């Protein structure tokens, strides 16, 4: 992988990519809830593809952090790109770990929902079901990440707190096996 030019003696920055698939961006917001520790983090990591940068494709990275489950073909494509390029892949938050709230649609019939939302619900004039080739294909069900690719770490929570994310990244950066202690693991 291309090495970041580092000043003599300084360790190379970890390269981190992040993305949100079928999530709400809440885990990314919780990431930002590390508040001013963000500036400390920026001394230690370099961001690749992320909603915070304009890099559109994931390059070779040390860590890939993925929020959200898998709900359409585009999600599958992006997840596989992350897996292929990231040494460590992290499923962050309830949706990535279990499918989360969006997976509540799994017991519904897609076709019927479409009919209702785009054709028969009150408030829709002359309806149609969107079908342009630019729109990615939805999956019948919403899946957690590990059903599609191998996942190295799972951080539960809706969302995991900024403190939990900070602890996890600090452990990785300092070469420890990440471990979230009391108060940092929660399922909500």
């Amino acid at each position, binding site marked *: 992988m291309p090495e970041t030019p580092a000043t003599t003696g300084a360790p190379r920055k970890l390269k981190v990519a992040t993305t*949100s698939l079928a*999530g*709400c*961006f*809440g885990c990314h*917001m*919780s990431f*930002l*809830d590390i508040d*001013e520790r*963000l*500036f400390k983090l*920026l001394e230690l990591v370099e961001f690749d593809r*992320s909603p*915070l*940068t*304009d890099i*559109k494709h994931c390059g070779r990275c040390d860590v890939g952090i993925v929020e959200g489950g898998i*709900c*359409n*073909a585009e999600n*599958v494509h992006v997840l596989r790109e992350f897996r292929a390029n990231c040494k460590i892949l992290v499923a962050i938050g309830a949706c990535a770990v279990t499918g*989360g709230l*969006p997976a*509540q*649609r799994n*017991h*519904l019939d*897609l*076709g019927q*929902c*479409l009919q*209702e*939302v*785009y054709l028969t*619900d009150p*408030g*829709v*004039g002359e*309806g*149609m079901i*969107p*079908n*342009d080739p*630019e*729109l*990615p*294909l*939805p*999956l*019948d*069900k919403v*899946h957690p990440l590990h*059903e*599609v*690719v191998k996942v190295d770490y799972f951080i539960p929570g*809706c*969302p995991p*707190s900024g403190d939990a994310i900070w602890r996890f990244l600090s452990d990785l950066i300092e070469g420890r096996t990440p471990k979230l202690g009391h108060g940092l693991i929660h399922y*909500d």
Partner: protein
Amino acid sequence: MSTLPLETADHPGNLRRVVIEPLSRVEGHGKVTLLMDEDDHVQQARLHIVEFRAFEKFIQGRPYWEVPVMVQRLCGICPVSHHLAASKALDQVVGATQLTPTAEKIRRLMHYGQILQSHALHFFHLSSPDLLFGFGSDVARRNIVGVAAAHPEIARRGVLLRKYGQEVIRHTAGKRIHGTGSVPGGVNKSLTAAERDELKQDIYQIVAWSRDAVHLVRRLFEQDLETYRSFGSFEARTLSLIRADGAMDLYHGGLRARQADGRTIFDHVDYSHYWEQISEEVKAWSYMKFPYLRALGREDGWYRVGPLTRVTRCDFIPTPLADRERREFLAFDEGRAARATLGFHWARMIEMLHAAEAIKDLLHDDDLLGSDLMSGGPRQARGVGVIEAPRGTLIHHYRVDENDQVARANLIVSTTHNNHAMNIAIREVARKYLDGRKITEGLLNHIEVAVRAFDPCLSCATHAMGKMPLDVELVDAEGRVIDHLVRGST
């Protein structure tokens, strides 16, 4: 189906496709496609919302009291908006026509906290790199990391403004993201004196920094007036909530719609029958619907919501510093900034200042410490809740059956209202900056700058679902088929 200029090319088959995917430094999933002819002229430009969800459908059958906690998971940037809009709708279901003073003020405090954090996030973390470095500047630097390196004090204030808003939310909702503080009929906690005093400590600094942020946008306008006044700009009808006395009120009010020249279409309309004013159109190329004002029809009825609308269409802002900034904004450059698409940023910072001032006033009100949290009355079958979310007017509508289960839900979110307007903005930019030129990354970012001005929340806008007539299989790591994509139109 209505069609606008540059929406649909006459002969798409012969054209070259350019795609911006994914849109970055915006919340949610979207992309822009351009179709160019052999002379590099833009023939078609579309903003597509490419994700689908099913919130309105899968909350059917759930107990109504779960709804404010469930629906906020539409959006992790503005969860409080959905939390509160759902609560307001369900207040009516539980007969709480009048909240207790403590409940109403705790909710307002939560809401202003969210306006503050969301506006700070959008301006400093997402949009400021374009404005500080230039729309076509180096992609490696065009992000918050670049801002932190080149303008450390601006970045630091942005982070701390957002942090303060998040702390207001944590104290009122119990958690920074996806809290539980608001419930049908009121709230489940008020503030302790210690919590109130903790928030009070920093609020004067927050007000001062918010005002500095307004002035920063003003300086950006002054430095490149020609670009800022015209970039992606167009005339638009507007829709917003307005207080009975004409004041800006982001938590409650009646609906006000105006023509582009300021003439009234309707005013102070009770939103409980919003469907008499607003209808939605579907287009084949986006999962996001296109709302329009019924009185004007689908061709002419599209409109714009959000900070620029609210700041320019209210009669006054009920806090002094923000109102002074509003008047200066309206007067600047003979009113052109107030009609410019990039005026969104200026208006957003004025609202951030208003939110900071409103928080300051509330923190001096002892009702926040009260213990009378809940109210109720005769049960109703239906409730509509409308709020001005950071990105614009947000409508939640529920019907609840006799078993306390949600029978029906309809949501029209802020970004959906702006669907037409955002598409028009990108076509303006495509026509002016890209047409006839060789496309570069920097030029494509101009399109995204126009989209970002609206601060779209594309996650919020994807609560409905859609599908296409194709067939694909999802295979797991061992090659087993674990899902397939629906086919046909059922």
